[in-house]
Every structure is written in C-alpha cells, then in structure tokens.
C-alpha cells in the first residue's frame, strides 16, 4: 500500500517535471516554425497582403485603405508588441520563409532585421520620392548604404514633463540646462528629503539611450565594411557621469519605470519631473490621473549653448523579403504613413505622434490639452523633433546591447558599479558578441 502510493506520486511528480521540459522544448521548436505567410494573388488579379502590427486602432486606417483600394486587400493581424514576442515570431517566420508581407518594427530594431536579410529595399518602389515628407532624422534611421528599408510612422522626440504646481510651491525655476536641473535637484531634496527631481529608471537602457542621443552620442556607425561601436564615447560618458552623480548623492529616486510604484511616485508628488518622449503624455493621463492640470511640458534641458534633442521610441512599417507582392506592399506602407486620413486614425486611435511633417500639423496633434492645463504641449515636441540629432544610428544586435546595459544598470543602482563602468562593459560585451557572430567591428 505504502509503496504503491509512493510510486504513483513519483510518477505524477516526475510527469510534471517532464512536462515542464517538454513545454520548454516545444516553445523553442514552435517559435522556430510558427506560421504566417503571404497569401497568393486571387484569380481576379486582386492581391491580398498580410500586415502584422500592434498599434491600437490601426485597423481604422487599414479599413480606409481597403475601401479605397479594391485591388489590394490588406489583412491586419493584430499582434502583441515587438519586444513582447512579435519580433521573435518575425525572426522565426523569416527563417522559415513565411513572414508576412508587412510588419511593424521600431527604429532601434530595424538594423537587426536588416542584418538577418529580412527587409525589402523600398527605394526601388519610389520610397526616395517621399523622403521630404518626414522629420529629417527619421530618414537617417530607415536608410542604410543607399537602401530604404522602412517607412517612418511615428516618433518620440523628448521633452521635460514637470509639475508646475510643485515647482512654484518649492520656488524652483524650470531648468533649461542640465546644470540647472542638478541645482534644482539639490535644492528641493535638501529642503524636502522625500521629494526628488526625478527617478532614475534602473531597468531602462532605452530611456538612457534617448538622453545619450541628445548629448551627441554615436553608438554605432559604419566605416566601409566595418561597424564602429562607440557606446562609451565622450558624449555618453558625460550623460552617464551626470546621472551617476545624482544617484551617488541620492538626489534621484531609483525606480523601475512603468510599474505601479513608479506611477504612485508620479502621482503623489514624490517626483517633480519626467524627461521623456512625447508619448509620455498619455502615460501620465492614464496612470497619474489625479494630477490633472498640474503638469506642463518644457523643452529638454540642454548640455550647452546649442540646443539639441534625443528621441525615444517610435516605429516604422517594413516589407518583408518573403512578400510575393513587394510593389503593392510598398505602396501600402507609403500610403499608411503619409495619407492624412490614415494619419488622423493613427494619432487619435493609436496615440502616435506622426513622423509625417504634415501630420504634425493636424488638429489631433496640435491642440491644447486639458490635462496639461490647456498647454499645447505638441508645439514643444514639434520644435524638439526638429532638433533631434540626425547622425545617431542603432547597431545590428540592439536587443543584446540593451540586455547587457540593463543588467549593468542593475549593478550600478545597487552600488556595485557605476554608470560609466556600465557603458564601458556594455561596449566591450557588445563588441565581443558581434565578433563571436562574425561581424566586422571595431571600437570607435
């Protein structure tokens, strides 16, 4: 009796462990053979395209296209966001040769897809002709050695969201330089130990990259057939040592951004500012609703006399190499991001800030916002977008670089290293990872 119970429980327990292994193995295998695929042309000459995107409400724009283009039908496949699994699915589909015709890809991830040979050069379908429609820096992001690999959709120019009510209460002036930002930080924290100028997001290398971008960093560039990697270049080091000083002197709160605790700090006056991208507007409206009317937006504090800006986020529309109708797919990608009716949908339904210059003038992206006390915050970002450094480029294994930097931030904010050390280690780790795969790469 006793032994039979033992053996049954042994089998059950063992099965459970095996199931866990099977599930892990199956997940790996399934990821490598997930389906997608472009549909062949219908007999009538009508073309059907598949489009993977996670932008909320983008179906409105797709429907608009389908109504006005009866011969080219676009099937929208609403996915989870890229980092939440869609990029992995795209890589797998490309490997299996059944990627969709069209997809959503963020700027930072574009070189990664260019490098696996997944994208169609759209310059052969007239993409060069619409270059002047877009905010200048975006075109540098979608082109690579003369080829156009994507059509810009939206952008994330940065600005400084600040609590106007608390700035007044504590007698602070809105900082126009990072030096003023630092003196505000010292002043308010000395008088009110539980109040901080802002939070350092210890989990968020993408936020940091926007700040480095503003300072003139050049993390990646190409020289002939070689990548030049400069993650610890002087501009980046300048940003890193600035924030390291704030961290070491306990002048910023260490938070993990986009978590409940951080939202609470933004709502209850613990944090006075949030240097972030234009889409942060919606983050505050949604997650700090009780502060309605208290926030305003100012241009980013600057490093010197010449104003400059960085960008955080934004994405593009690409045509994958497996498409059987790349010309039609390119036509849709261009229309989606330049047609004003389509852009209205992207702004109002998707909450995107368009990369299209005419789109930035639409009322939906250029009107006073009640949550921000009636300030037309968009004008700050429109001006800020024009200041975004056009030479900044992403590398071919950006997700690895971000992972390495994020792991490093954890050690810096827990005190076992510094941000400048993290930049140096991310630089050498990224170069190692690239060399391991065979890239031609050198430090810059």
């Amino acid at each position, binding site marked *: 009796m*006793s032994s039979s119970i033992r053996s049954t429980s042994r089998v059950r327990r063992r099965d459970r462990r095996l199931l866990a*292994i099977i599930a892990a193995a199956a997940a790996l295998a399934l990821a490598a053979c997930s389906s997608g695929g472009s549909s062949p042309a219908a007999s009538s000459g009508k073309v059907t395209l598949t489009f993977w995107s996670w932008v909320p409400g983008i179906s409105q724009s797709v429907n608009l296209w389908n109504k006005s283009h009866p011969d080219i039908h676009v099937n929208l496949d609403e996915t989870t966001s890229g980092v939440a699994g869609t990029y*992995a699915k795209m890589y797998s589909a490309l490997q299996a040769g059944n990627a969709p015709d069209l997809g959503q890809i963020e700027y930072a991830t574009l070189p990664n897809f260019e*490098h696996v040979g997944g994208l169609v050069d759209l310059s052969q379908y007239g993409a060069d002709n619409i270059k002047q429609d877009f905010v200048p820096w975006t075109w540098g992001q979608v082109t690579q050695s003369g080829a156009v690999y994507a059509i810009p959709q939206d952008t994330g120019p940065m600005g400084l969201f600040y609590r106007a009510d608390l700035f007044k209460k504590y007698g602070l002036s809105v900082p126009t330089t990072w030096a003023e930002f630092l003196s505000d930080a010292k002043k308010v924290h000395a008088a009110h130990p539980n109040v901080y100028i802002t939070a350092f997001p210890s989990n968020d290398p993408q936020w940091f990259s926007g700040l480095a971008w503003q300072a003139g960093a050049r993390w990646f560039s190409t020289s002939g057939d070689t990548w030049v990697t400069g993650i610890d270049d002087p501009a980046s080091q300048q940003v890193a040592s600035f924030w390291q000083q704030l961290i070491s002197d306990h002048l910023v709160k260490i938070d993990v951004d986009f*978590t409940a605790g951080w939202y*609470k700090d933004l709502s209850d006056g613990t944090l006075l500012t949030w240097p972030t991208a234009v889409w942060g507007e919606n983050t505050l409206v949604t997650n700090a609703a009780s502060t309605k009317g208290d926030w305003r937006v100012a241009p980013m504090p600057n490093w010197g006399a010449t104003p400059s800006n960085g960008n955080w986020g934004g994405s593009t529309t690409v045509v994958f190499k497996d498409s059987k109708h790349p010309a039609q797919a390119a036509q849709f990608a261009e229309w989606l991001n330049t047609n004003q009716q389509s852009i209205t949908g992207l702004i109002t339904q998707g909450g995107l800030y368009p990369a299209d210059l005419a789109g930035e003038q639409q009322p939906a992206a250029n009107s006073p916002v009640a949550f921000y006390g009636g300030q037309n915050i968009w004008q700050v970002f429109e001006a800020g977008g024009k200041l975004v450094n056009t030479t900044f480029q992403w590398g*071919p294994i950006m997700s690895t670089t971000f992972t390495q930097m994020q792991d490093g931030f954890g050690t810096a904010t*827990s005190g076992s290293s510094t941000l400048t050390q993290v930049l140096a280690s991310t630089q050498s780790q990224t170069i190692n990872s690239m060399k391991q795969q*065979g890239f031609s790469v050198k430090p810059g």
Partner: protein
Amino acid sequence: MAVDHQQTPAAAAAPGEAAAGSASRRHLRRRRGRSGWAPVMFLGPFGVLFVLFFLLPIGYAIYESFLKVRVSGLGLGPNSTVTVFAGLSNYARVFSDSSFLSGVGRVLLFGVVQIPVMLIFAIVLALLLDSITVRFKRFFRLAFFLPYGIPGVIAALLWSFLYLPGLSPIVAALHDTGFGTVNFLGVNSVLWSIANIVTWEYTGYNMLIIYAGLQAIPADLYDAGRLDGASEWKMATRIKLPLVAGSLVLTAIFSIIGTLQLFSEPQVLREITSNISSSYTPNLFSYTQAFADNNPNYAAAIAVVLAIGTFILSFGFLRLVQRRWAGA
C-alpha cells in the same frame, strides 16, 4: 447528426458479429488482440503525443544546438548572414559562459537554503495533520494545499505587489512598527524573496506527499508503540519519520530539479526590480538568448545542457531509492 446516423448501425453490428463467431475464431481474435492490437490501441494516443511533443521538439532542439549563425562584414544585405554547422562550439561556450555558471551557482545556493526550509515545514505540517488531536483536518489539508492550485505566474504577481515599496502593506507595516524600510527587492534580498514565493507555493504539495505516506502506515504499529508507552513525539521520530523516509527523499530530489528550472518567479519579479539580471537563472538565460537576443541555437544548447543535468539528477535519484528499497 449525419455522422451519428452512419455510425450507429456499424456500432450495433459489431457485438452481434462477435457473438456469431465460433469458439476457435473468438480464441484467435482474443489472442491476436492481446498480442497485436490492444497494446497499440492503448499506447497509440500516448505514443503519438510522446513523439510529437517530446521526441520531436527535443530532437529539433538538439539539432539546432549544433548550428550557428555566421555573419560577414556589416551583416547587411543578402548572403551576409548564413547558418553553418557549429559542432560542439555552442556547448563549449555554455560551459565557459560566466553568465550561465553564475546562474547555476545561484540556483544551487537557492536550493541549499530553500529546499530544507520548505521540507521541514512540509514535514511539520504533515505530522500535525496526521496527529489525531488536530481538529478540522480536512479544512487544514485543503488550506495548506491551496497555494499549489494557484498558477506560479499568478502567485509571483500576487507576491510582487506585497514586495513593491510604496504599495506593499507588509513594507508599510514593518516601517510603522519600527523595523525601518525593508527592501524585499534589494540585490541581496531578492533571491530570498523568490525563495519565499516558492516555499509558499510548494510546501502544501510536498506536505500532501508526506501525509499520504503517513496515512499508509499500518495502525497496528501505533498500537504497538502505545503499548510500549511511546509519547506522540517518540511515535513521530521513531515510527512515522523512518517509514516516510522514501517520500522525503522523493520530495527533496524533485525540489532540487524544480530549483534548477526556476523561471517564472524571477521572470515576473524582473518587471519590478532591476536586481534580477537577464541570466539570473539558467532557464531565464536560455529564454533571453532565444527570445530577446534572437540566438535560438545557443539557447537550445543551454536547454540541452540543463535537460541533461536534470536527467542525471533524476536517474541518480532513482538508483539511490532503488538501493534503499533493495536494502530494506
């Protein structure tokens, strides 16, 4: 409905046909059934699923682990990125990868502390439930087991809210009662916060295995013990524990295996703290390689190494237990 109509007569005819058969034919059928079809019928569903969802994925993972992506130049444009045979180089990299090794070290440290604590809890609870003086036995049995019924990810999410400073009532209560600001998500404390979640989840499960073992002990052993004047404590240490030793070894070794595969708790807590790196546990490392770094070949090699480690532990355990039983 149409399908039903077609099938009904055929199904009805089958018994009739069998009854009409001669005795020798029936004998033949039974013999053939025993040696030919019955095992296939019983094993078929299992076999198909086993091949589809066990052998094939594992085979594919092993195959992938021998490949790697080779890039040339900038890696842009056609033919600059090719997949080539890598031999054992992915495996060589696993064993020399400090991220992997420190992850293994971390889960071993975790296991050395967490498993004994959890099992001692499980033993105490099982003995309490088994002692006759406890009332509401069924209620407590269910209550202790309940956490195991909550999916691991949900449990980790629940606990993450109890750990998050600014929201956690526990952190607030400790602060108000003079313990200062306790950081459950600190660089040194977060491992033990994960251990707490795992203990909470699995103590009841392990208790149930031990309790089942206790229930199976013949009552006459207790009668004999009582006649000899043994106290409840003596009965527990001299009769009960030795007789459930097999269950204890079992729960221990499978807890070790579960620890090696630690994944969902750190993955969930990673969302709220930067003190859990992308290679915190070997499984998390493999996941990052596969789904963040787009390096399925290396991820497959890590997964295979982990699986082999797990199998070695499993079979080592089996041999250990078999020797025990043979000796008993």
